[in-house]
């Protein structure tokens, strides 16, 4: 297990690692997701999904949730001007995941084989989920 964590830390350019109740979390804002995906593929980890989270500065945090039995690993990467390299060619499971994030959060995945819209019609603007949540969403609605 330590080997994979060490490899991940070097692949994520010295990401900060933390162990929590729901697995390992690696903060790797500037990392290249392709290098992380390469390490995880070598260890036969399954890509559960990627969570996109809006940031106040207009960028998007992408949390890659990998699953190894009893050891879930979550890696947080931040987009650069709403762009990131695609991992769909390394992990086919990421194909639909990246299409959905492109559709709902307007993130461009460079190198994706087929970055069509997934759930919303092509006529609608991208980034429907770029809306506030939590307390901010409630103030906005009651205002």
């Amino acid at each position, binding site marked *: 297990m330590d080997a994979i964590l060490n490899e991940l830390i070097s692949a994520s350019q010295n990401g900060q690692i933390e162990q*929590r*109740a*729901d*697995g390992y979390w690696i903060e790797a804002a500037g990392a290249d997701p392709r290098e992380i995906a390469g390490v995880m593929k070598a260890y*036969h980890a*399954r*890509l*559960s*999904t990627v*969570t*996109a*989270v*809006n940031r106040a500065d207009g960028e998007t945090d992408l*949390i890659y*949730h990998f*699953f190894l*039995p*009893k050891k*879930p690993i*979550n890696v947080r990467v931040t987009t650069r001007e709403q762009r990131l390299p695609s991992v769909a060619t390394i*992990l*086919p*499971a990421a*194909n*639909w995941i990246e299409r959905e994030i492109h559709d709902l959060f307007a993130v461009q995945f460079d190198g994706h084989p087929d970055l069509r*819209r*997934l*759930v*919303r*019609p092509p006529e609608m603007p991208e980034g*429907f*989920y770029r*809306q*506030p*949540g*939590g*307390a901010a*969403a*409630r103030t906005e*609605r009651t205002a």
Partner: protein
Amino acid sequence: MPYKLPIGPYHPALEEPYKLLLTCRGEVIEDVQVEVGFVMRSIELLAQRRNYIQDLVLVEHVCGICSNVHAMTFAMAAEKIAGIELPPRALYIRTIVAELERLHSHLLWAGIGAEDIGYRSMFMEIYYLRERVMDILEAISGNRVNYGMIALGGVTRDLTDPESILTAVREVRKGVEKVVIPIFTQDATVKARTQGIGVLSTEDAVAYGAVGPLARASNVPDDIRESDPYGAYPELGFKPVVLPGCDVQARVVVRALEMLEAVRLIEEALRLIPAGPIRIADPLPVIPAGEATARAEAQRGEVFYYVASDGSDTPVRVKIRTPSFVNIPAVQAITRGQFLADLPLIQASIDPCISCTDR
């Protein structure tokens, strides 16, 4: 000369709206493109505007078949952020309801599979068994579909009549052992329609990230109940069902054996269930700022939730990853080179849920 054949999004043969664009050469499928999004309700976005108690109701409506598991996984994520420990009885009740849900879903699937093969009488037989499970769920919760059993920090209702649950699940076991398994494994017509059909290799299953019975029928030993245990499963001696067949028949048999395992788990849980409270004392626990992920094994595979809180009563981010979202793309790998006439059964064999996929 290959030709293109569109099916859907609205088609009499589809229970839910989605679109398949087939490229065929004669009777053989060369490629399939799947399009989804026709029943998108933006549940993630809605959940980020409602409080946690309202969200429990909302996420239960992601899907009509696997409703309870969504509320349970959402609650597990919120409870992880707040560090809430559940009373043991609540863990057992959650497990029993989850297994009853698996039982009715697998029976529903087996019924539809039988109908797709053209085995009408078997469909009737299986749906009779499923109705017994639905009756039990209605007796426990008052509802047949959205049970509303999950509360933050426990469950909303106690189990008061374990004997009736035992009687019903034993009846289901008898039916599965005497009718479902023998027909699905020995009947000549069923064997001809299922053996060697719709093969998903182990490599493809891993590459597409397939989960649940689809992956386990392709020899991928991945079951969240064992690999990331939750609820009362660690105390019940759970064993995953994994088969190397990779074809439609393996998927049928995995689900049939999982039904028997579900009955065993329910029996064991009802034997071991401790007395005590069914939820924590605080009915409206505060979820502090933080984030957490939660996984549970629904009947179709791993359900994944990510919840982030800003300390208010409304989550900042709710991410829902349903098993069908990863299993449906695998249809591409499964259908290449198959006969067009086998497509309905191949599709049914992955137990796709479009409501789940679109959310």
